């Protein structure tokens, strides 16, 4: 019993540290990749290859002057970024980072908790995340911030529907709501993306919208809204908002890899003839490779596509994504029914 607790504690700390570390280095990666896509070199002065850049950015953020506008609601103003950061860090608990490790004959899963409604939990927490944006924008008492917050909330609601529907189809094929179990079912190469290509497409588009990433970054579009919901924020509070976005991106990538790309599973994992712990270790690396690929994918899209106009965003969400998701649910339902009859 005690060993379980210790392992869980280590896992919590490790996941937290890794999430923060990856988010910090995503900021570096983002700038590097943006630069490479634009034929530039990107940050390369702080440390070798500019690897200390996230540190320099962090110091810069903390050293900046902290301003709370005179007419802002102080409590809510502070609550906003805190909530954004908190919810961003909370989703990590249901993600299975690896299979099980064997210590003295007992197996311990590399997942902080495998609650049986893992998917619902993840979506619930992600939806709370929008409150961070809304509260921050509202509390700033600034029309640009308010507009940004409004856009964020309506965008979240619109895309959450399609996202939920794409998950419904996934739940129908797997018959499970626990993320750990869904990943276990995708053993080897039985990845869900093969059975749910349309669902995956809808899911990833919605994930972009949920993370406020280009082409759906309307809540913070600089060209129209100054800075969007974080116009009035400065110093580390702004840092928290920006950082939360990167953590969300990391978590989204992890969820996408877990739900659709087999998580820690990789082809031929049984036929290599390795020990159980060895397979698990490789699995963890495979999982992180997938996650990092999806983070790269997020950035790749960001530096390729321009931002949508707001009506286009809503049209896409309500008139394309939701019908498509419903069709997907229908087809999946029919196929599942037919297969079960035989």
């Amino acid at each position: 019993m005690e060993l379980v607790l210790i392992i869980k504690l280590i896992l919590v700390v490790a996941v937290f540290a890794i999430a923060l570390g990856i988010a910090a280095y995503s900021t570096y990666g983002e700038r590097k990749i943006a630069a490479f896509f634009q034929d530039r070199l990107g940050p390369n002065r702080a440390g070798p290859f500019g690897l200390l850049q996230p540190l320099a950015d962090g110091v810069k953020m903390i050293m900046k002057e902290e301003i709370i506008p005179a007419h802002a609601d102080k409590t809510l103003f502070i609550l906003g970024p805190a909530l954004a950061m908190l919810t961003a860090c909370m989703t990590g608990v249901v993600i299975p980072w690896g299979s099980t490790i064997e210590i003295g004959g007992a197996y311990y899963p590399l997942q902080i908790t495998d609650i049986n409604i893992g998917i619902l939990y993840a979506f619930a927490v992600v939806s709370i995340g929008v409150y961070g944006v809304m509260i921050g924008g509202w509390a700033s008492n600034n029309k640009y911030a308010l507009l940004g917050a409004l856009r964020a909330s309506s965008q979240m609601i619109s895309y959450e529907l399609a996202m939920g529907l794409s998950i419904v189809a996934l739940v129908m094929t797997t018959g499970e709501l626990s993320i750990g179990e869904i990943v276990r079912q995708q053993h080897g190469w039985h990845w869900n993306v093969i059975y749910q290509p349309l669902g995956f497409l809808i899911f990833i588009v919605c994930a972009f919208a949920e993370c406020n990433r280009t082409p759906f970054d309307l809540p913070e579009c600089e060209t129209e809204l100054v800075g969007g919901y974080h116009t009035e924020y400065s110093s580390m509070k702004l840092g928290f908002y920006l950082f939360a976005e990167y953590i969300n991106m990391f978590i989204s990538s992890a969820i996408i890899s877990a739900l659709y790309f087999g998580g820690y599973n990789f082809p031929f994992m049984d036929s290599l003839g390795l020990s159980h712990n060895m397979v698990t270790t490789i699995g963890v690396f495979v999982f992180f490779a997938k996650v990092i690929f999806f983070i790269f994918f997020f950035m790749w899209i960001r530096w390729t596509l321009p931002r949508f106009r707001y009506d286009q965003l809503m049209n896409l969400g309500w008139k394309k994504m939701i019908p498509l998701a419903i069709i997907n649910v229908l087809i999946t339902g029919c196929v599942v029914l037919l297969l079960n009859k035989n």
Partner: protein
Amino acid sequence: MQLTNRSKVVSNKEMTLMERAYLPAIVKGMGITLSHLFKKKVTIQYPEVKRPIAPVYRGWHVLKRDEQGRENCTACGLCAVACPAEAITMTAAERKPGDENLYREEKYASVYEINMLRCIYCGLCEEACPKEAIFLTDRIVPSDMLRQNFIFGKDKLVEGTTADKRIDVGVRGGAHRKED
């Protein structure tokens, strides 16, 4: 007239289903950005690598000395009058007996300042100078954090006396001499 062969005819005709599906276009765009990932980077790593500049480049001014190491400038103020940006200010002083080895004329500039933030590097001061005292050189003015550090006094403008501290003005000096 055709300038490049990259022009494309644009039409407003109805989009085909393929075009309206939007995804093929996205994939194509991602292909373009991905190809840029491996292209040669155009960045010039400035302090270590410098872009070649023209021989007539106009940068950081120098106040020249003559062959005997005396300052050429006589504080006539013609450069300040000529300057369209009003960047030059100076204070004139009379040469003291015994200072003949420092200043070529009886009058000299005890203070000579150019505000490098005002200067537009037009080179009119150089053209106006009757004493061949001021020249623009190919040196780039370094960046700084404070505005006041951009007011360059004589310490930053006058060249040194020893041969290695002299500042070459290249073709600019030669061109002037021919006109004289």
